[in-house]
């Protein structure tokens, strides 16, 4: 599903190295953590997968296609197959919970009937069915991240990419969100989580890829943060 070979990436016109010679492969239906301290290259890797950035060298295949060679007009179609979850939620605060989720479906051209059917369903999956009409600003941080998750799965993506999804949440709420991601994964969706939350990684015992200064220094099935480190 994601196949990286000798990936290198530079910022500031090649002055600072974000990733160096990174190679890994993620299979369909897998759950993997990308761990490492701030600046290790986790977010850069996520950006490469959704083609927000291009690698400096190496190849990255997502859903079998070399994303760095993907023409610009095909990008939206790649992203429709990837649900994104962000640390800062990135919701439209002046809109309701329902509208935020419906928005993701509307922009890809789903019919109104489909939206009316699907949005309550995904809100039910994340436990927010009763808050459909609530404004984002009236929700807690955990609830806002649930809206982010609902939005990410609304279009039935093949893969979810979560960049520090628990970074702004208290430990209990963070665990709830991770449990939701696990249940999404159990339904067959590939889940990639970039995090430096040691407790969460150790608790879930999933595949762990450890990044340090832009290099992949460890890759362990059912790993724990400290083992890999």
């Amino acid at each position, binding site marked *: 599903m994601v196949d990286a070979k000798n990936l290198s990436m530079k910022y500031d016109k090649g002055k600072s190295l974000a990733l160096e010679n990174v190679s890994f492969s993620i299979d369909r239906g897998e759950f993997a953590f990308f761990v490492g301290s701030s600046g290790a290259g986790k977010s850069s890797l996520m950006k490469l997968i959704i083609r927000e950035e291009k690698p400096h060298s190496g190849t990255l295949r997502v859903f079998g296609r070399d994303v760095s060679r993907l023409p610009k*007009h095909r990008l939206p179609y*790649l*992203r*429709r197959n990837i649900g*994104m979850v962000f640390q800062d939620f990135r919701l439209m605060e002046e809109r309701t919970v329902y509208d935020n989720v419906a*928005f*993701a479906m*509307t922009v890809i051209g789903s*019919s109104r009937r489909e939206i009316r059917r699907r949005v309550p369903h995904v809100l039910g999956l994340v436990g927010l069915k009763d808050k459909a009409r609530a404004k984002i600003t009236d929700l807690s941080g955990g609830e806002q991240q649930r809206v982010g998750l609902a939005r990410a799965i609304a279009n039935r993506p093949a893969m979810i990419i979560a960049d520090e999804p628990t970074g702004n949440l208290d430990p209990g709420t963070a665990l709830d969100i991770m449990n939701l991601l696990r249940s999404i994964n159990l339904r067959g969706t590939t889940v990639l989580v970039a995090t430096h939350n040691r407790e969460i990684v150790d608790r879930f015992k999933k595949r762990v890829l450890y990044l340090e200064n832009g290099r992949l220094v460890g890759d362990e099935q059912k790993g724990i943060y400290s083992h890999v480190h």
Partner: protein
Amino acid sequence: MSRKGFIRMFINGLIYILGETFKGLYRNRWMCITSTGVVVVTLLMLGLFMLVNFNVTHITETVKDQVEIIVYIDENADRETREELRQKLAEHREVATINYVSSEEHMNRLKRQLGGMLEGYDTSLENPLLATYEITTVEPEAVVSLSDEFRDYPGVSDVFYGQGYVENLFTVTRVVQIIGLALMAGLSITAVFLISHTIKLTVMMRKREITIMKYVGATNWFIRWPFILEGLLMGFVGALVPLAIIYYIYEMAISWVVANELMFLSLLPSQWVITELAKYLVPLGTALGILGSSFSMGRFLRV
């Protein structure tokens, strides 16, 4: 994708874009009102200036049209010479109209102008006034060179065209026109700058929305259309409002001129003025609205 699927997606897209346009305008109403306000004020300034410029040009053109050459016919010229002179003048391609005024007619005019002052003057005595041809030219600016030309014609005693005054009039009108054009160009550039920047600000306020759209897989055109339509509406309304204001102000100005019997101020008809202004302001406002919003979106779409 099947044809039916494509049509369904197209209709859904269209409903979405129109819906988003009006929702966007409502959601960001204060910003949109501000942007439209800037368009209104800028185009109102430009429109008012154009209105003044149109009328100044019109008045000066009217004055210029009244400039004529008076060719004094030599009193010793015989009938044949006079006829040849008339023919030569009438056939000249720079001459628009030619009007013969006999010496008797000149005397009558003088009497009318001076009123009772000529009372007692024996008009049966020899009339000292010369018969003339009053000539208007195709191009008012040609009077100077034509006068010089006509002076050499046989049967011409003298030529008069308001020497000194005419040259000054032409200089003044030329200066007025140049200043007018320069100010209009300056104001247009200011309008372009102000409007596109204000709309850019409106788009920047919605940066987050655009970025989210990109992440969930919206195509650039799908994102652009509502913004472009919003820009178009803001620009269009922003151009209509100044037109209405200018129409109202201009009607008041015309009424004032009529009420004060200032008929020498030959103002252009309001219908014509508004139509001319609409030809400039509506496309300018609309185009600026569209360009302002689509250009300012560019960098947010690169996510």
